[in-house]
């Protein structure tokens, strides 16, 4: 039986086991929307802006083992989707975006709502397709899912002209995909793995550095076994949080620009570093030459060869699926009984504990004004550390990363690579739909939340009961912090006046809102919001927080990992420790 291209799209999505499609209709996808109307295999979630559709689909992927799907129309629908696609690309999130295109005879004629979606999205997708022939539609969708989720994952765009959606054809969904030019590596080289194990056994100051690749590669169990069986110190990147449990004593905290003192010092001073699904990016190691100033041997495990030796030369590259490589490493460790020298390791731990002792995340509590860090800590307590947390981008994102201790992977969703303000609410939507029984909270700021605030309407329509924790300091906080430190307190356009009344705004969208101004109210209000009475409701919590609070520690521009700007209580000790210049903060 022949069916239309639009029906082929719907049937293909069903074959892929798609549960939700996040989208927004328009002229060039009306055929597909008509086919969606006639089916009940998956649910369509009507967002209020295409960017949010892609973010929600992205979060659906991030918080599950499935591939999120977004559907947008041609022209402005497609261009609105681009920020979402780029966000997923920078964090290697599997995603399939279907976009409508004007009919093939109209392509290139500047038709109404025509943009070259394949051309525009090319630099921010893993791959993309323009389907001009109905006979290739089903196999292209199959390829899109396959490419999105295999190897180093990423977003794939399938652009489908309107006439292709209308053409009739037989439907045959392929069982498997064979792309001769695309064969991702899975197993690591056994020789390299053996070398890595012997290097680890010789280490005096070993350190495990775990990134988002361990989360995406479902390698948390293997990471834990490696770290625990050898008694090693471990750090997670912003994208790797949860890959190793945040409450474990062997976890030294997140590293990088706003990492803990102990994590950054250990990273800088280790002698053998095992990098697992991490890419030494600028927000993690800052300046490569300063990072390599302390000589260290580096083992780098990554599924993407181009991530290896991109910023830092490594001694033992291992290209492969992190889970498989770690398993093999664990087997070799077991078989050989290799382990680092116990005395050296104990001395290394004493050093790390000394770095840890002053607690670089300590902040001054106040009874007058709400400290943003306190809100996150209390949120952690109130949710029992179990909630799925999404964040937007800025100071609140860093405080969320520092003070919420993530014990499992896929519990923490944020835009680490692209740093997209406005992801928080759509991320919470996608995460809640993928995990209907989980508590989902979005830690946001008054600036970020306004970048996709319209999605409160989507949450109302689909009864998505996420909790919004707005750390409202009336500033673009991270911009203000940089202006304070690097631009002589000239707060150029970083103060946000004329903010809406967020409580009334939440109510206008049919939700519940609370404004919280006193530190003593933080815990009771959070308990109420996360309590049984409001379980089914979206709650918008507007916390008026300290405007002058900065994120510490901080590795400033051009500084090395061991040249952090530290919180006030550690500055005096640091000043006596050396004569280094700590910039404007001291």
């Amino acid at each position, binding site marked *: 039986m022949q069916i239309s291209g639009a029906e082929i799209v719907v049937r293909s999505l069903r074959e892929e086991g798609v549960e939700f499609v996040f989208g927004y209709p328009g002229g060039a996808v009306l055929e597909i929307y008509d086919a969606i109307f006639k089916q009940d295999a998956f649910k369509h979630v009507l967002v209020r802006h295409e960017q949010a559709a892609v973010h929600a689909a992205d979060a659906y992927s991030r918080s599950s083992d499935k591939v999120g799907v977004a559907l947008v129309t041609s022209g402005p629908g497609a261009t609105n989707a681009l920020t979402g696609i780029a966000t997923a690309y920078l964090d290697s999130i599997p995603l399939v975006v279907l976009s409508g295109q004007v009919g093939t005879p109209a392509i290139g004629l500047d038709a109404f709502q025509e943009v070259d979606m394949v051309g525009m999205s*090319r630099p921010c997708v*893993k*791959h993309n397709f*323009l389907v001009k022939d109905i006979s290739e539609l089903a196999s292209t969708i199959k390829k899109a899912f396959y*490419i999105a989720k295999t190897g180093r994952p990423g977003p794939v765009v399938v652009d489908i002209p309107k006439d292709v959606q209308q053409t009739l054809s037989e439907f045959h969904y392929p069982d498997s995909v064979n*792309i001769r*030019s*695309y064969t991702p590596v899975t197993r690591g080289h056994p020789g390299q793995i053996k070398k890595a194990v012997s290097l680890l056994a010789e280490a005096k100051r070993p350190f495990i550095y775990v990134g988002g690749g361990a989360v995406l590669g479902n390698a948390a169990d293997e990471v834990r076994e490696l770290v625990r069986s050898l008694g090693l110190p471990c750090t997670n990147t912003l994208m790797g949080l949860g890959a190793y449990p945040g409450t474990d004593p062997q976890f030294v905290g997140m590293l990088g620009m706003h990492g803990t003192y102990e994590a950054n010092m250990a990273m800088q001073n280790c002698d053998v570093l095992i990098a697992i699904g991490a890419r030494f990016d600028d927000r993690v190691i800052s300046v490569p030459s300063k990072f390599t100033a302390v000589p260290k041997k580096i083992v780098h495990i990554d599924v993407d060869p*181009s991530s290896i030796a*991109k910023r830092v030369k490594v001694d033992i590259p291992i290209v492969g699926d992190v889970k498989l490589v770690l398993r093999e490493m664990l087997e070799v460790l077991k078989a050989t009984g290799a382990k680092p020298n116990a005395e050296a390791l104990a001395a290394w731990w004493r050093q790390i504990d000394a770095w840890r002792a002053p607690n670089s995340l300590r902040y001054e509590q106040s009874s007058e004004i709400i400290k943003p860090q306190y809100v996150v800590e209390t949120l952690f307590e109130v949710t029992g550390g179990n909630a799925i947390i999404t964040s937007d981008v800025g100071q609140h994102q860093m405080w969320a990363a520092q003070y919420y201790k993530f014990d499992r992977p896929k519990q923490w969703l944020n835009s680490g690579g692209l740093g997209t303000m406005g992801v928080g609410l759509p991320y919470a939507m996608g995460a809640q739909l993928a995990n209907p029984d989980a508590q989902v909270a979005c830690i946001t700021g008054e600036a970020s939340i306004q970048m996709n605030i319209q999605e409160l309407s989507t949450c109302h329509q689909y009864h998505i009961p996420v909790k919004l924790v707005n750390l409202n300091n009336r500033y673009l906080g991270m911009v203000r912090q940089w202006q304070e430190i690097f631009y002589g307190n000239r707060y150029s356009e970083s103060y946000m006046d004329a903010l809406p009344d967020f409580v009334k705004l939440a109510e206008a969208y049919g939700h519940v809102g609370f404004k919280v101004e006193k530190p003593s109210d933080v815990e009771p209000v959070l308990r109420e919001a996360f309590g049984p009475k409001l379980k089914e409701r979206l709650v918008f919590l507007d916390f008026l927080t300290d405007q002058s609070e900065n994120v510490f520690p901080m590795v400033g521009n051009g500084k090395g990992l061991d040249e952090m700007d530290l919180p006030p209580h550690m500055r005096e000790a640091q000043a006596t420790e050396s004569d280094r210049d700590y910039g404007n903060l001291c």
Partner: protein
Amino acid sequence: MRHILSILLENEAGALSRVVGLFSARGYNIDSLTVSTTEDATLSRMTIVTHGSDDVIEQITKQLNKLIEVVKVIDLNESEHIERELMLIKVRATGKDREEMKRMADIFRGRIIDVTEKTYTLELTGTSDKLNAFIEAVDRTVILETVRTGASGIGRGERILKI
């Protein structure tokens, strides 16, 4: 350092723009690029001449391999190879220049493929250096037009780039 990369890729619409887009997006250099289909119509063979440090060339190779439509990439510089470029050059050929241009064409093993009263059009093949040398050797004022294909390269002996 100058490198010649040979790339086998799917002969599909958009494959070329992915390669070119990669070079511009990541700030790599393209000194020349040639591409055409092979004896297998589903495949294109591309030769890119680029320059950069060893680290940059390594990244270029890895990034090219990452493109879904790229089947294989080799750096011809890694072993013995042959390189050829074709140049068509139109020169003024009047008076004493007429005999001189013919002599120069012979020296460089070029051929005159079009003749008018006032011009010759010459065809020259060789390494890019040889074509540069020809341009250097003739009087600049007689050159009316040059067209170069960019270098194509192939490994020497039994070394082949194939699926």
